[in-house]
């Protein structure tokens, strides 16, 4: 329902998103029991359904698109906006009275909106369906996007070096434990968070003392790179593999989007290991994600064997 509403609305200000979100998901829940609107927004963004301009406090839904998933048993994925008109037309176009070449179904996932998977006789059916629906088609979205991932350096190069907020509690990120703790100062190289009113602000101070105001995830990976800390793992599966990311070091938006575009599923969180798991990520794409973040992918023994066999 929420994605349908976002899709019908198209775009809007962040407070509208929060108001609708909280009305739908958090009625009758206390603050700690409730789902945070920012969490939902990030999940939807990771899945490629919406874009968020955090600075401008705006959101917009992305145009609907059909894409073939990499080595996923000939499945395709519908992502982006999902208006009711689109879904009605998808129903009509795939009705068995019209074609028996394509079927689709909704797959429930706890972490995000239902994923919509399609199975077709061949890839041309999907392309033609996209054309009939009037939406985009891309046969290798995850692969293309992974090639275009910007590097950490490029994010740091364009980040503003604004003065640090004063008078607020400062926390420092510890790359070894991946935890934040109260800091006495914010001059030494490292990643700092300021508990200002509204969204917290992060500044990354480089080895040379340059400071950069960055998004939290970018800052974390900048600090992990500065301290040569490797945290990304890839575990080979029967076909592709799972990209495993520490819960305290979530992937930046585009990297997370590439990872989810491989399966159409949001990352699943494991409480026991405190990690997020992205399934069906081809090794080459996992390596591009890691490289863009200054990480060397830990392939593990199984992964290395699989890689050698490949």
């Amino acid at each position, binding site marked *: *329902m929420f994605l*349908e*509403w976002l899709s*019908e*609305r*198209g775009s*809007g200000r962040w407070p509208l998103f929060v108001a*609708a979100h909280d*009305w739908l998901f*958090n009625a*009758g829940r206390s*603050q700690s029991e409730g789902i945070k609107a920012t969490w939902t927004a990030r999940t939807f963004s990771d899945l490629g359904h*919406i*874009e*968020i*301009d*955090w600075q401008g406090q*705006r959101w*917009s*839904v*992305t145009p*609907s*698109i059909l894409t*073939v998933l990499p080595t*996923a*048993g*000939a499945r395709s994925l519908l992502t*982006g906006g999902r*208006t*009711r*008109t689109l879904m009605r037309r998808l129903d009509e176009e795939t009705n068995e009275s019209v074609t028996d070449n394509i079927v*689709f*179904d909704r797959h429930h996932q706890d972490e995000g909106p239902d994923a919509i*998977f399609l*199975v077709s006789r*061949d*890839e*041309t059916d999907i392309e033609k369906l996209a054309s009939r*629906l009037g*939406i985009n088609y891309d046969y290798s*979205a995850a*692969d*293309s*996007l992974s*090639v*275009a991932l*910007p590097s950490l350096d490029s*994010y740091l*190069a*364009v*980040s503003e070096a604004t003065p640090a907020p004063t*008078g607020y509690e400062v926390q420092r990120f510890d790359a070894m434990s991946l935890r934040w703790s109260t800091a006495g100062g914010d001059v030494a190289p490292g990643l700092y968070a300021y508990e200002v009113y509204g969204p917290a602000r992060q500044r990354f101070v480089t080895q040379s003392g340059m400071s950069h105001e960055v*998004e939290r995830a970018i800052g974390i990976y900048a600090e992990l790179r500065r301290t040569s800390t490797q945290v990304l793992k890839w575990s080979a*599966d*029967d*076909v592709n593999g799972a990209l495993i990311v520490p819960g305290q070091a979530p992937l930046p938006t*585009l990297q997370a989007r590439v990872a989810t*575009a491989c*399966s159409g599923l949001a990352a699943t969180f494991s409480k026991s290991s405190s990690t997020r798991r992205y*399934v069906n990520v081809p090794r080459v794409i996992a390596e591009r994600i890691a490289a863009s973040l200054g990480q060397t992918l830990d392939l593990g023994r199984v992964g290395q064997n699989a890689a050698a066999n490949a």
Partner: protein
Amino acid sequence: MEDSSAAEARLATVVRPKLLPEPSGDVFRRVVDDSWSWRLKHPEDDPPFLPVLAVAVLAAAHMARTEDWAAHNYYKPLREILRLAGSSGMPAGYDAAMQSLWGHLTWWLNDYQAGSLGLSSVPAHPSPAYIGYALSQALFRSSDRQRLTHFFLALDLAPREPIEAAELLTYFRGWSQRSHLSSGAREMARRDEYKEVLAGILTAEWNRWDGSLRDERGRRLGQIFITLDLYLRPKLAFVAERPRGFPTQATFDFEEAQGGVALTAASNDFYGELPLEVSAKTLDTGLRGQYEGFALGLTPSPVVPFRQHEALGCWASVRQLVPGEQHWVLVRDDHEAMVRDYLHEAALAEWREAQAIAPNGWTFFRDVVIDAAPHRVPNPALSRVVPSVTARPSLWGGLPVASNPEIYISGGEPDLWVPTTQVGETLPLAIDGQLVSTDFGGGRVALSGRGLPSGEHVVTVGPSRLRFQTADTIGVVNSRGSGALSHQLRLLDGRYWASSARGASETEPITPAATVQVVGISLLGARADLPKRARAPLLLPARASQYIVLGVVAGEIAQPQVPPESPRWVRRISPFSAGREFLPPFDVAWVLVAWRTGEWEARLRSDMEPRPCDPDTTKASTVRKWCRCFLELEPQMSPDARQLWSRYRAFAEELTL
């Protein structure tokens, strides 16, 4: 100052000589005749009949002080003031005279003076008839009229917004009982017999309201907020709002501060912190400051909810707790037990007392979230912490797809919120003409989940009618705002660079050169600027015995082996797929599938004509294999593919010759 009874007597002596004896049949005839003469000849002068109206108001005020508010009781004090002997009923000619005189006054104020002295608040058709004119002025004082600005704001009304008198009256009667109106005005609100007078007053004041808050003297009023800053050491303070037109700098006179309080605008909307301590005394008495025609005020209340205030960057006192949001509540100790009981019953579980923040004699409760209206009407003293959106029924939440008018997506209809304590009585509730409850006591009603069809809907709660529309869809595949934001990447030396470190930004309608825009999982940009793409994967049916993939160029042939099982992670995902992917090394023209029955099927992938190979780079054996497929197999295919298959076969025949 003159004694009030002496002043009353002096007023009576001015009026009495103008009256005729009662046996004349019209005590006020001379006054009325003079009033017409004044109106026709000398309206530039003050109305000569004002003392008569003043006596009428005085009589109404006397009546208001008694326990007996019966209408006939008005005439007794009137007769006493005017020393009219005879019966205790209406003096002869009073009815017609009052109609004329109050009418002349209204004409003079509204039309002749064009409102320059203030507009008339005299009801056109008072009830009870005739004495209602005076009652409207006596019971409902000037200060009460000014306080109506608080009522209009409590209803969340904007000037000139259409609202029925009956609706104003219903919610005023509830609001008045916890307001700071005079006792006469509150009593008037309680009694049914003054409904029409009140409705007239409310309508008149509503029509002239300019949207500003005013104090009892009619000065523009800025509210003083109690703020709570929790950073490091929790701190309570007073901060005054600065409505439009208030000076940027001024020294306001406060009783609590000798020499006044110099205030400077900290922003367009607020002055800096007031140098006054938030103590039990200031909370008990409230604050009032004035500077020329401007006033600042904090109305005391034993229960004060706080909510996060975006502009102030901290918690700030609010008029009303709203549903579902986190609040702190400051409570005077004599109300603490009552509030505690109420929170136990109504609030979500996490509320608790916050230690060492409130002044002596007061208690703070933190993390108070109340999402639902209480089952029973709570004590009126708790009205500020009973969740309500405004002081009248309103729509709250929902999933609006458009505003002006509000259109909600079907299934995302808003909730109806009806204030509980303000009304203090039950109301009939109907949705689209269907009676839902005859005695609705207030609270939250979900309008979603009722299967309302798309279209216009009307919710009726007592005198209030709320309208909204629903639509199943806006009717497009991609809405207009979709794709408005994207991540901008610059292409530099073959690598992609982020253009911003702060997430997505406005999408350029035409992607500039050397730029790629990422919208969702799509990349927008010139072909040369986009990453080089692999060939499209072929989706092959899994349960075939053999596959042959043939390219456009002779010799391009592949015989893919596909895994018998699909990847583990997709096996639990519906719909079932019997397909597998194959990444071809060349541009594919035909896919040949051998079914287990022995039949071959040809699937056309490209309508390109066959091309010869480069003999220097192509093995003759692969060309022979490629040709044999066309020459030896007789696959099933769609009729539109047959002609091209024939041309490929002819091409293969030529090659083999």
